[in-house]
């Protein structure tokens, strides 16, 4: 294979939109969380548990984590694309990041639905 510069992967827009959409989800969640904590002022484990065992809060919190991990993926991939110039190493690191984030998402779900 000749070592020519190749560009034109033909993606990027979806990630650009997703980065913004996930940021909005996280901002909205932050407001909901602050309002909830402000209104209830939980003290102690049981009070905190009852907030997050509520179905709506569970859904929103899980949505927040999914948004966070998706947002992180786009951001970290951008950093890897800018600074890791070896294609093989970049691919390995990208796979490692995806693996870690998918694992975190599963872990987050496990914690939330155990409450």
């Amino acid at each position, binding site marked *: 294979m000749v070592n020519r510069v190749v560009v034109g992967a033909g993606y*990027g827009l979806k990630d650009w939109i997703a980065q913004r959409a996930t940021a909005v989800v996280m901002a909205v969640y932050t407001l909901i969380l602050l309002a909830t904590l402000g209104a209830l002022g939980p003290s102690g484990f049981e009070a905190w548990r009852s907030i997050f065992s509520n179905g709506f809060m569970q859904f929103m919190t899980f949505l927040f984590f999914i948004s966070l991990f998706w947002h992180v993926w786009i951001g970290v991939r951008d950093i890897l694309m800018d*600074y890791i110039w070896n294609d093989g190493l970049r691919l390995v690191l990208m796979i490692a990041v995806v693996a870690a984030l998918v694992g975190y998402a599963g872990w987050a779900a496990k914690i939330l639905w155990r409450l």
Partner: protein
Amino acid sequence: MATRTMQFKIYRYDPDKDNAPYMQDFSIEIDETDRKLLDVLTKLKAQDDTLSYRRSCREGICGSDAMNINGKNGLACLTEIKDLKQPVVLRPLPGLPVIRDLIVDMTQFFKQYHSIKPYLINNTPPPERERLQSPEDREELNGLYECILCACCSTSCPSFWWNPDKFVGPAGLLNAYRFIADTRDEATNERLDNLEDPYRLFRCHTIMNCVDVCPKGLNPTKAIGKIKEMMVRRAI
């Protein structure tokens, strides 16, 4: 006539003679009539004719004398010397290979510019007279067609420093939008396809260094935003 002395620190590099680039101090008497940095460079060149830089029109139209002036890219011919802090530090445009002193190799920059097909694409037979635009449609081209390709913006952009071979850069993208926005152009879809790429367009993270340095007061970030907006409208 009153004269005063100005101090300069100028990047020197002659690959035929020097092992490495170095900064040379210059001191020069300037007259009241010397107003722009290029006036002083002309005097410095008379004092030391090995000092090399590009220049042509001396009025901000050709874009030849772009350089890094006290840490910020600009055109020597448009830079007032009275506003400059001394010693004035002059370096070549950052991120491009240096040919000699303040002269850089612009090949990469123009390669990116050519990659966006900077010409009108319209395959319908031309009318008897010119292809007309409404004044409103023509209005959209203002702030785009004025680009003189001096490379001040692209060489102040970290994304272009990291990926000059893959990222089109602010100058190229501003010109891409100039043709995307042109109602007489028929290749809008192909142009958007050409840019929908994680490197070519989406390396722009809107830090706006380009807007900060443009000697013509143009706004590449806004043009890039409009390209993204058109892509979004096309996709949803």
